[in-house]
């Protein structure tokens, strides 16, 4: 089966696999770059041997323990038994097992432990623009110069045999900084300098790297990763990348990077992603680090050197005086819970400074469209300033009435926002909800469609406005729009608005039960907690519709579409929870932390309901 999954989804889905892989190998903890124990003389790291114009670094400071443990891992075997993981691995041709076997044959020793020895002191790979092409340079530090020499000799002999010149690499082709150098083709060179392995697609870079490691070539790497947590680290120098003349030097992606940075200045991006995430696209340097901690897999993305400009006004650092966060809820464990920062007041106030002129009419239009619902209140003067920028969004499954169960059931979502003046603004928002229902009914009446029935219900003494569609013909199937049974309520100073009354009712009860609400500590970061089961259940319940959508939109067969979706579902099943935190305490720096709690069904026997 040929799988065509969304790359990002695959990447995300592979993270649990990597986590378990590392955990299964009994990997030590890995430290961040600034905490890395120096394996070479003070002040020198492997990346220092890479060319100065390197724009992308990939470092593996302590891969050795992972590689040396090989496949002797219960968890790795358990993951291998997961059908989705298996399906992904099966796509490889040759397979992973075949590759390892082939490598072992060439080296005449088990591949993974030998790689562990070669990379005992770490690995650094750099990408840099050349005159006509992209150049790659690799530096690895071994714990055994003899083993490195033997391995390199065997690999070169194999390459020579494959090329039909078995003796081509019997002798080195050159000597640089005291190191033997072999050239494969006209450009690729590989060399050994003591315990260092250096390879590059540029002779200049090869010479530079060899000169850098020569003074410490006799240092033996020690694979002791106990104080090292970062298993992998990717650094991208976006500012340098953008200086590259795209195309002429073999570098792609500069235009896309530029477009990504420009997208931060779009109102929709600011609103959907939030100011911090939107700003990270403007980083001069990105650093991505992968950590393993027990059953947790942690991915950190750090963006540095951000020029936020006027957008800094939208960041939490500049929160206005009324920035009270909505109360935390006790009820949720199945769905998703987000705390986000969206300063709508500042967005509208500074819109002329933030966005291009052709975006501004949309702001005027939205003010014009919303104003009639708010009984004459001025949106920019009276409404937006009275809303706290900290908002909470909760998502949870809905128990639909069997007679009105939509063919495509969706989880319900509920937004909580604090209002400064509950008496006036809070009640105006409730009235706006009721007016909106009336307007929808007017339009549906013109279309001869069943209306939204508006009602008011008391929930623990609190008025909840609710509405739902009248089901006219359930025999013909319940449409997707019946997922919408909106409701709203005002609980003290918290305005609650949701897509389904059952969820709003639960939120209202939760808030009402908080008799002595403690003053919330002012948050410093936006965060999301998402249950893998919520996503899996939503996908499984809508599987037939998703399959058919893929068939019609992508032209694949039904069995192909079903197979691809089942792989995705299987991979998400590996994830118990996902936590995302976006922090921006300094306008020049944004930190995003993604933490995955990987499901280990083999341990607790828990199975996800399908």
């Amino acid at each position, binding site marked *: 089966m040929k799988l065509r999954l969304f790359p990002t989804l695959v990447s995300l889905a592979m993270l649990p696999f990597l986590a378990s892989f590392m955990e299964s190998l009994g990997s030590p903890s890995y430290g961040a770059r600034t905490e890395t124990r120096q394996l070479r003389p003070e002040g020198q790291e492997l990346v220092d041997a890479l060319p100065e114009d390197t724009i992308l670094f990939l470092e593996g400071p302590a891969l050795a323990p992972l590689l040396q443990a090989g496949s002797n891992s219960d968890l790795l075997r358990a993951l291998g038994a997961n059908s989705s993981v298996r399906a992904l691995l099966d796509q490889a041709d040759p397979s992973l097992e075949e590759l390892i076997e082939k490598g072992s044959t060439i080296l005449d020793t088990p591949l993974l432990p030998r790689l562990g020895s070669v990379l005992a002191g770490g690995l650094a790979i750099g990408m840099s623009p050349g005159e006509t092409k992209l150049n790659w340079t690799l530096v690895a530090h071994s714990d055994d110069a003899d083993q490195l020499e033997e391995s390199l000799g065997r690999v070169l002999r194999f390459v020579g045999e494959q090329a039909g010149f078995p003796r081509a690499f019997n002798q080195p082709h050159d000597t640089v900084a005291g190191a033997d150098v072999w050239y494969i083709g006209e450009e690729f060179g590989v060399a050994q300098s003591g315990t260092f392995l250096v390879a590059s697609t540029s002779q200049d870079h090869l010479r530079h790297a060899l000169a850098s490691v020569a003074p410490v070539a006799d240092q033996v790497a020690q694979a002791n990763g106990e104080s090292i947590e970062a298993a992998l680290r990717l650094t991208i120098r976006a500012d340098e990348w953008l200086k590259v003349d795209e195309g002429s030097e073999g570098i792609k992606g500069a235009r896309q990077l530029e477009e990504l940075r420009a997208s931060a200045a779009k109102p929709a991006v600011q609103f959907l992603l939030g100011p911090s995430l939107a700003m990270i696209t403007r980083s001069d340097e990105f650093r991505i680090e992968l950590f393993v901690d027990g059953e947790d897999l942690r991915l950190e993305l750090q963006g540095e050197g951000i020029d936020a400009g006027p957008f800094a006004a939208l960041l939490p650092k500049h929160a206005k005086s009324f920035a009270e966060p909505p109360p935390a809820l006790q009820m949720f464990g199945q769905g998703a819970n987000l705390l986000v920062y969206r300063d709508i007041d500042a967005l509208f106030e500074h819109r002329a400074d933030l966005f291009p002129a052709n975006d501004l009419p949309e702001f005027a239009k939205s003010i014009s469209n919303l104003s009639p619902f708010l009984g004459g209140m001025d949106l920019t003067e009276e409404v937006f300033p009275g809303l706290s920028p900290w908002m909470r969004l909760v998502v949870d499954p809905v128990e639909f009435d069997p007679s009105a169960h939509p063919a495509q059931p969706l989880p319900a979502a509920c937004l909580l926002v604090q209002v400064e003046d509950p008496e006036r603004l809070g009640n105006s928002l409730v009235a706006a909800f009721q007016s909106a229902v009336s307007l929808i009914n007017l339009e549906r009446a013109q279309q001869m469609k*069943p209306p939204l029935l508006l009602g008011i219900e008391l929930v623990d003494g609190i008025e909840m406005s609710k509405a739902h569609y009248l089901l006219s013909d359930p025999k013909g*199937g319940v449409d997707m729009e019946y997922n919408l049974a909106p409701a709203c309520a005002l609980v003290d100073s918290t305005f609650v608005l949701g897509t389904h009354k059952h969820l709003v009712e639960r939120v209202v009860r939760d808030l009402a039960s908080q008799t002595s609400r403690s003053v919330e500590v002012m948050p410093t970061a936006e965060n999301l907690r998402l249950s893998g089961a919520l996503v899996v259940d939503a996908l499984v319940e809508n599987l037939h519709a998703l399959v058919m959508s893929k068939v019609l939109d992508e*032209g694949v067969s039904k069995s192909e579409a079903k197979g691809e979706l089942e792989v995705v579902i299987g991979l998400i099943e590996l994830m118990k929870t996902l936590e995302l935190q976006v922090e921006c305490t300094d306008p020049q720096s944004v930190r995003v932390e993604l933490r995955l709690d990987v499901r280990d069904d083999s341990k607790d026997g828990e199975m996800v309901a399908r």
Partner: protein
Amino acid sequence: MKLSRTKSALAEWRPTPGNAWDASAAAQLLRRGGFGPRPADLERALDEGVDRTIERLSEAPESLEENLSGIHSLLGVGKISQLQAWWMSLITGGGVPLVERMALMWHNHFATSNDKVDDVRMMHRQNVILRENGLGDFRGLLRKLAKDPAMLIWLDGDANKRGNPNENFAREVMELFALGIGNYDERDVQEAARAFTGWGTNGRAFAFSPDHHDTGEKQIFGKRGEFDGDEALELVLNHPACREHVARKLIESFVDAKPEGAAVRELAGVLVEREWNIGATLDVLLRSELFFQPRVRRGRIAGPVEIVAMTVRCMDKSIAPSRLALAADRMGQSLFRPPSVKGWDMGRGWINAGTWLARHNELAAYVVDSSGKPRATLGSAFSKRAEREPSERVLNTLFPDGTDRAYAGAMRTAADACTSEQQALAQVAALAFSSPEYHLV
């Protein structure tokens, strides 16, 4: 059962040396009776002959049931684009060729647009009626559509009430669906509208409201009675013009846009003789000398859905159905959204400056990418045969029944100017798509 006819337009066609069962004749049958041949279809048709080829037009693919029912999971989403893509998938190979051809014909005849109905489930239900009854008894088809909720909304059935009749449905039944202009007068329309009062919808179902029905005496086609909607429909169906109206429609769609009166009358006789069964009547038409006369071959401008379907079928390309539906839309035929109750203007009406450009752009996109470079799949689309040059490979695929020498020569010249085989294939295909010849079926 085949009719034995002599000296008539509908006489059964017998191949002769001057009008043989050749690639041209086989292509005519596969294009008009279905949506064009796939690469191997034409050779197989030549081997198997007329009878077996006609049978194959009614053969279902193995996955037919699955292909038909797949859309059910998406109807609740309410996106007409998904319904369009689903029908396109049936037209291009997922359905029975002749059945889909007829459903498309009736969709234009009983034109109903989702722009007004605004309900995907109702549009789907009407499409099912067209598919399941399109080759059956015309009278049954008309009766079902008269009570179809989508049709009732489209033609204001809900507004047709006693004392204030709405004439839309009655008028279109006479003018467009069953009789044609000149075979009724205004009073017939007004009186029939009274008969249809009370026919409306309740949600997505047909509903008859006795309170809104006019029970008084009506006079339709000179006959008096307290006719209700069903009886009014019977009067229409029994009108002598009805059989000829249907026969004319069949000949216009399958043979000639300007049919001769004698042929229409003859086919109308066949229709009545075959108990109004469209499939049986069509069987006579598709075997007739009228159908195979060389004059009518490649003599009709293909509609957008036809040309898109024929192109992907002959190139054997796998393209997302949603893209195909969008391409047809840009060329001027958005399924489930005909521009008016009269349907689409066929023939020359398909072509204007905008739609002609869209035809070229959309079809060329199958052979070149957005930057104008030949697509990597071109080689497989135009199957390689040792003896053939690029221009021959393309023409053999797009015109399996051949082209004239001048046309082929011009294409060869264009290919010769190219620097690579891929470029030549793309260049010739793009030129062919831009030529009027390619758009004639």
